[in-house]
Structure formats: structure tokens, C-alpha cells
């Protein structure tokens, strides 16, 4: 399985990562190697095995609809690199 340069650019774009051409080449190589390794699992015959997204024998884990106290505004914003007037502040999401 070999990722193309375009695949990497597309995924980087979706993840809002800005990569240099050098990085794109490097990650294409590294990610391909990881996928190749994982691809060895394809050798196992799984035709009789249903997809198993959950490995724990759990189901219907739900909570009752009763509100609990939330964090204070100062606490919620404590780790924010930038904030103003009680809001998180980030660079504009939509370019004008």
C-alpha cells in the first residue's frame, strides 16, 4: 500500500495541517510503511468474523437526564492560550 503525495496533502488539508513539500514526501514514506505493516493483517481469513468495533461486553451505558454543576468560566478557560470576555479566542475560522 503506497500513499501518494496527493493522498497525504488531502489528509493534511482535512486535518488543517500545513506541511512543506519536504514533510509531505517524508510522511508519505513513513505512513506507507505503517500501513504496509498493518496490511499484514489482511493475510488472516476473516470472512466468518463480523466487524467488531467494540471489544468490551458492554451495552446501553446511559445516564439519567439530571444536570450537574458545570465548571466556572475561569476554570473552563484556565488552559486556553487566548481568551477575551469569557470566550475562547482563536484565529478567524473563515477567511474573509
Amino acid at each position, binding site marked *: 500500500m503506497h500513499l501518494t503525495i496527493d493522498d497525504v496533502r488531502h489528509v493534511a488539508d482535512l486535518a488543517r495541517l500545513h506541511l512543506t513539500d519536504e514533510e509531505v514526501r517524508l510522511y508519505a514514506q513513513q505512513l506507507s510503511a505503517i500501513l504496509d505493516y498493518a496490511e499484514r493483517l489482511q493475510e488472516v481469513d476473516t470472512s466468518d468474523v463480523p466487524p467488531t468495533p467494540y471489544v468490551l461486553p458492554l451495552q446501553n*451505558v446511559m445516564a439519567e437526564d439530571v444536570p450537574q454543576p458545570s465548571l466556572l468560566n475561569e476554570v473552563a478557560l484556565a488552559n486556553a492560550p487566548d481568551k477575551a*470576555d469569557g*470566550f475562547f479566542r482563536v484565529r478567524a*475560522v473563515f477567511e474573509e
Partner: protein
Amino acid sequence: MSMTTVARPEETTFELVVGMEVHAQVLTQSKMFCRCATDYQGAPPNTRTCPVCLALPGALPVINRAAVEATIRTGLALNCRINETAVFARKNYTYPDLPKGYQISQYELPLCADGYLEIDLEDGSTKRVRIRRVHLEEDTGRSVHEGGYSYIDLNRAGVPLMEIVTEADIHSPEEAYAYLTRLRATLRALGVSSGDMEKGALRCEPNISVRTLEQKARGEYGVKVEVKNLNSFRSVRNAIAYEMERQIAILRAGGSVEQVNMGWDEERQCTVLQRGKEDAHDYRYFPEPDLPPLRIPREEVERLAATLPELPAAKRNRYEQAWGLRRTEANILSGEAAVARFFEEAVAAYGESDGKPQRLATWMTGELFRLLYADGEGQDLRQIASIKIRPTQFAALLKLVDDKVINPNTGKKVLEIMYVTGEDPQVIVEREGLAMVSDVSAIDEAIAAIFAANPTELARYRAGEEKLFGFFMGQVMRATKGKADPAAAKERLLQLIRG
């Protein structure tokens, strides 16, 4: 091609094809996956957050049982199949209004699928709009863009949101309007959503395309355009009509429609390009590993089915069939649970015989709604739940009119006073001396006085100027302050005026 003639593009007939996606906030006390309160309207920013909805490392979501039940009840009301196994999925989405970097939604196994909602068409027939799926997800936060920055408030992030998706079964702007009206009435009757579009609790995104009849015959569709930013059902209807014309004009001119997202400009009543085709449909859904699947046993579905109230369509039919209401009034009175409750309590006090429910309906939708619409924020019939008039008092007022204690015009005046004071109509009639005068001697007395005061007019009438009868009738009503029984007054006047 063996065809000898080719239809000219300007003569081509097009069919409108619309699928509707509705997001409705679910009325719960706490959020979808954490127990932060959902009362974010008007709250200071970022005061309804916790490690889960802030996406702090290590925090784990827990499903809100009430939201799941509300969604299943909605699915049942929309004639859906409730999936025995339902799974939440991560929808990758990289905007700061959902700090996890994904939205927890549902993809392959939604809670409800394959239903329908019946709507009324203008010609009186009904039509089924098929529901593809109803699933549960979480709302995003709110962002304000200003001066190169986005300001993020996560109070709304994680509020439960139901997504209700139709098949592409809607073929006119009016059908879209009818669908949305009936859907909202259903959600409100179930008590699962406020349905308030202006508060953002209900959002509609129609995807709109047109196709030729040839394409239709081949089972093909035109290119879809999605319209967002619609803040009323009327906007939805207008946007669909506008898009249909726009797309047909492009195709007739030999062009092609582009797959884009449009916004609705309410001011100019047109759609505007929001952003071009994006590869955003690359959401890379996968099962949410933090949430074990839901298994919904048949008994649970049956238990929830038993909690469904009478739905608006059924109510409407009952009003027509059992009480003989006209379609118009039956629709209006069944559309809001609070209005229906008032109407039914008033009918219980007033009676079901002799066309009484229709008379009540006429008074309610005419006189009472006029007062409601003029009151406060107006335009919202749900205010009826908090007015001072009780349904029994409203019925008592109509009885006073029926029994000729007051005439209909006085009835309207009494209703206005009741609306302000909440008093019983009898009390008002007595205090204000509004009871109708049908006592013949009192009417005769008034007529004699009028004749004495207007000898010229009387002579002219007697000389053949019959149109003066109206003048005398007006004088009698005025002399009795509008309280004379009009029929009795007319009869006495006819008698006496001949001399």
C-alpha cells in the same frame, strides 16, 4: 437516435426534487454526553461546560437516556423502524466550535430508519413523505467572528440534536412548507423539541434539484444545491421556489448547475453562493470507541410507543369527523398542543351538538386569536397556555350569545375585557349593563322617542323613502347602547314606523 424532433430547451418540462434535512434540539435538561445544563440561552459564555464538552484529555462521554427515548418516540411517531442495535460514530470535523475535532453522531446504524410523515396537499389529498432516518448527535458551540478572530462559546456544544432526513419526495415549495409544518407540530405534540426556529432549536436544510422528465424516467437526478441559513418556514418555501427558477433558467440557457452550498438572503429574497464545492464530505466516520452500542429490546420500543400522545394529524381527523369542523379550523386547532387542549376543554364545557364545536372554533380562530396575535411578542399561538381566560369561561361566553343574553357584537367586547381581567363573562355583562334588551316595551319606548326627535325623517320614510329604515334602525341600536336584540328591534320598528 431515431427521434426526428428534439424538444427545444426552453420548452422542456422540469420536475422539482427536494430532500429535507431538519436538525431539532432535543428538550432535555442536560447535554447529550455530559450532564452540563442545556439552559444556555442568555447564559454568560462558557458557563455550561465540563471536561467532556471541553474535550479535555481523558474525559469520557455518557449517553443521555432521555435523549435516546425522545428520539425513539419521534421515530415511532414518524412510522420508522427502530433499529435493534444503534451505534454512535465519530464524524471528523475540524472547527473550534467542537473542540474534540469530531462530532459524535450516528452513521451506519441510526436509532430510527425508513418511516414516513403524511402531509396535506392543497387539493385536499394527502401524501406520504418518506423519512430515511432519524438519528441523534450533538450540537456545536457558537462562534462570533470579529476583527480577524473567532470568539468561541461552548455552552451549546453537546446539546442533543436530532437529525431527521427525508427521501427526495418533495416536489413543490408548498409541499416543503406542509412537511415542515406537520413535522414541527408532531415534535411539539411529542414534547421532544420546542421547534423554535428563531431560537435556533430547529434548522432546515433543503437540498434542491430539478430534472427533466426524461431524467426522471431513467431514475436520474439533477445536481443538488443545499440551502442554509433559513430562519422561517416561509423562507424555506421562498428559497426553494427561487432555487427552482434559478436552476431551470441555467439549464434552459444550456448551462449546468454546480453542486454548491447556498445561503438565503432574507433581505433580497434570493440565494447566494456560500462556498464552492468542497471535499468536506470526507468526514471519515467510524464507530465511536468511547460509547458502547445501544441494544433496544422490543419491549422497550413497545413501552415508548404506549407513551405517544394523539398526534396532530389524528387530532385533525377527529375534529373533522366527530365534531364536524371545517378543514381550515381543524388544522389550526390541532397544530399546537396548547391550542388543542384549550379547544377541547372549551368543547367539553360548551357541548358537541348543533354545530357547537364549529361555532367555538370560529370564535377561537377569529376573535380569540386576534387578541392573542396582538398581545406581547405575538404570532405565537402557544401563548394561549398563559392567557387569563379559562376554556370554561370562553364556553360560558358563547352560551351567553346563544341564549341571546348578549348579541355577538357585545360578545366580542366582553371577550376583550375577559382577556385583560380574566373575569367571568356573566360578571362583566352584569357590571357593564350589557345584557341584550329584548323587552318589547323598552324598545317601543326608545322608538317613540326617536320618532319624536326626527319628525322630518319619519315623514320622508312614510312618503316612500324606504332607505331611511336603516337610519332608524341605527338610532334604535344607539339609543339602547347596542344592547337591543336586533331581531326584536327590527320587528318592532317595522310595526311602528308605518304609523
